[in-house]
């Protein structure tokens, strides 16, 4: 049996443990001096050595190793002062596009897209939500009509972070309006630099624009950039959405990382903010943060042993609730100072940081956490229906052609 790079058959690397992986990184660093090399050349070499994301297959930046070993790799490269791929800037690519391409892509697509995605040469954005399709994503109206080897796309997308800097996009569009909504969708890997793609900033309640609206007018996408089968877009999109929710809420953090750390530091350094009522609220928040942290660690351990499942939906609910509880408390704790905002001017947001800027910014930004990437209400449906196996709400749109659904 012949195996190509990135072929699933070639995933089975020899068993590697944490010590082995650290040795591999050190050997790599001996041959690739990060201080002497061009940043991009270094990152490409790291990818080619399988040390980008070790749980990916051989030939696609990984070693087919356990996901749990990635921590040791990141640690070794950080210790060596090696350049990184600026993961915050390419978060959508790393967290959502990559796992979807890996799972549903052809070998050509994986080889074409994963390396520049990981090195940051190509920034990705997500063209999913529309003004008329938020929670009901499968009801989206952006149309893709086939014309030979090309698809012609028309529609409007919204809440697209990084669209103004992105070269590529994961896109879901309607390819058949005559079948029920979930069946008429197709998933594409779109080029954001071609004619017909117009990006406009979308101002949010913090005053700035972190997201965009994207208008697609007769945008041409080659059929070779279709991910998965025609009509299979909803199933492909599930991989993206599951990974998104893990990316937003998940991860193993040290104690007092995140918002509770800001509150705890304020409490310790500024005795004048301390009141009895706030004290118990702070301790309740501390306990809630610790419970959320331990849940995140446990989820990470579960992921290391398997695949992200619907259980990941819980982590985003927990994170959103915690952020909103703690940022509200911070303003109360600070009193007068909590009434001041840093800047309402319309401007482009830099890399998003929920913990940055002023307490009022954090309070307002946290309101998005229970909406973006699936509202907490939709996530509760997912937990109830997919984890707990409860029956779905009665539906009026399920066995109806999309074109006949009221909108």
């Amino acid at each position, binding site marked *: 049996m012949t195996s190509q790079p990135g072929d699933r058959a070639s995933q089975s690397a020899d068993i590697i443990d944490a010590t082995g992986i650290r040795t591999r990184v050190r050997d790599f660093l001996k041959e690739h001096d990060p201080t002497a090399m061009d940043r991009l050349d270094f990152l490409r070499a790291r990818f080619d050595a399988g040390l980008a994301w070790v749980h990916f297959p051989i030939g696609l930046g990984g070693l087919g190793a356990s996901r749990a070993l990635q921590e040791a790799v990141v640690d070794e490269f950080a210790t060596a002062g090696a350049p990184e791929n600026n993961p915050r800037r390419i978060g959508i690519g790393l967290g959502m596009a990559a796992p979807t391409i890996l799972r549903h892509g052809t070998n050509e697509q994986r080889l074409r897209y994963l390396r520049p995605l990981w090195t940051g040469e190509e920034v990705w954005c997500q063209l999913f939500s529309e003004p008329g399709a938020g929670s009901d994503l499968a009801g989206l109206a952006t149309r893709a009509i086939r014309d030979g080897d090309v698809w012609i796309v028309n529609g409007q997308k919204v809440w697209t972070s990084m669209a103004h800097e992105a070269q590529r996009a994961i896109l879901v569009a309607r390819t058949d309006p005559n079948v029920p909504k979930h069946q008429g969708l197709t998933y594409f890997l779109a080029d954001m630099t071609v004619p017909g793609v117009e990006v406009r900033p979308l101002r949010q309640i913090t005053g700035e624009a972190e997201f965009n609206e994207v208008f697609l007018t007769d945008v041409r996408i080659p059929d070779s950039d279709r991910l998965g089968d025609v009509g299979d877009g909803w199933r492909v999109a599930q991989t993206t959405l599951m990974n998104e929710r893990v990316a937003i809420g998940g991860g*193993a953090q040290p104690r007092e990382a995140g918002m509770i750390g800001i509150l*705890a530091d304020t*409490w*310790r350094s500024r*005795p004048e903010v*301390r*009141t*009895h009522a706030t*004290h*118990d609220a*702070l*301790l*309740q928040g*501390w*306990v*809630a943060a*610790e*419970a*959320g942290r*331990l*849940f995140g*660690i*446990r989820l990470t*351990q*579960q992921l290391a*042993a398997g695949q992200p499942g619907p*259980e990941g939906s*819980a982590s985003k*609910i*927990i994170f959103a609730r915690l952020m909103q509880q703690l940022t509200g408390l911070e303003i109360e704790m600070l009193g007068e100072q909590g009434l001041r905002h840093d800047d309402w001017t319309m401007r482009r947001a830099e890399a998003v940081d929920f913990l940055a800027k002023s307490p009022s910014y954090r309070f307002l930004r946290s309101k998005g956490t229970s909406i973006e990437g699936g509202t907490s*209400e939709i*996530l*509760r*449906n997912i*937990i*109830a*229906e997919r*984890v*707990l*196996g*409860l*029956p*779905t*709400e*009665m539906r009026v749109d399920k066995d109806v052609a999309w074109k006949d659904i009221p909108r």
Partner: protein
Amino acid sequence: MTDLLYSDVEDALRASVRSLLTDRSPASLVLKRVETPDAYDTELWHALASDLGVAGLLIPESLGGAGAGAREAAVVLEELGRAVAPVPYLGSAVVATTALLHCGDTELLRALASGTRTAALVIPFTTPSSSELSRSARSRHVTVDGPTGTTITGNVTSVADALPADVLLVPTADGLFAVDARADGVFVTPVVSLDLTRQLADITFDGAVGRRIATGAAATDAVRAALLAGAALLASEQVGIASWCVDTTVDYFKTRYQFGRLIGSYQALKHRVADMWVDLAQARAVARYAADCLATGSDDTSVAAAVAQAFVGPATVRIAEECLQLHGGIGFTWEHPIHLYLKRAKSDSLAYGTAAIHRAALANLVDLPSPAA
């Protein structure tokens, strides 16, 4: 990194405990038993202790125990909570056993390991594991005198798992004593308890003669360690209670029709059970962390136990209350076992200190001082 999952061995242990409980202690039997004079199920205890050998999980093999640890004991407690099993596992196999391990009392430990005897720490069930308050509460009501300095007199109220106990471990200002529960001058009076499946007792010592098993700091440390283990592992029992409540609600949602629909199809209801599940998922992580800290002797055990009781206690009460509400009328009947779980959940939320007491303890442990300080 701390392992918050369950090992294969722990899963196997869970399966055998669950199988025994399903067979020997279904909810219908527990419900009948709570109205008899023997609220504790002695036969079930012997099956658990002798047949499965779980009484000695915390006791080294050299003393006849299983030489396992707190992680395994936590799994047993999850199952006992799930079944609201009326056995003195927490009081004897966790709290009293931990005290004896600190005292190094090998003879009693051998008896506890085999399950032929059980012991109880004679202290109110609400005594917190970490506070000045608990120190004074320990010795307030019991005095020691007599020619050999081993005659005990006094009252202790609301003691857990003392009714079936053969040996009472009595903290006093003059050390920790072991007293035979059947000795002259020992009066163990059952309390009509909120928790029907862990009936409390008021205990009076009227010149009872005991055996001193630890003195001074060793006695204080033994009691503190016992209460810390109790608080840390109680969280696993609470997780068991909560998981029964979530599962039972989900099952009910899949069988109960109203307005021509399964009630589980209503978003207004399914969102509430989803929230119960999210709370349970966090409670499980918190409880596993506390058990693992205890098992490894981590420096973080006091914090882990305080977080466990500050989070898991109220979460379990909330989940049990939701379980009752979401069952509607049947949930308010005596015939349905939900009330046993609600009563256990509420009672447990006070055991070894309320959430508020544990938050106050955390304030000191993690340097978030109160305004007065």
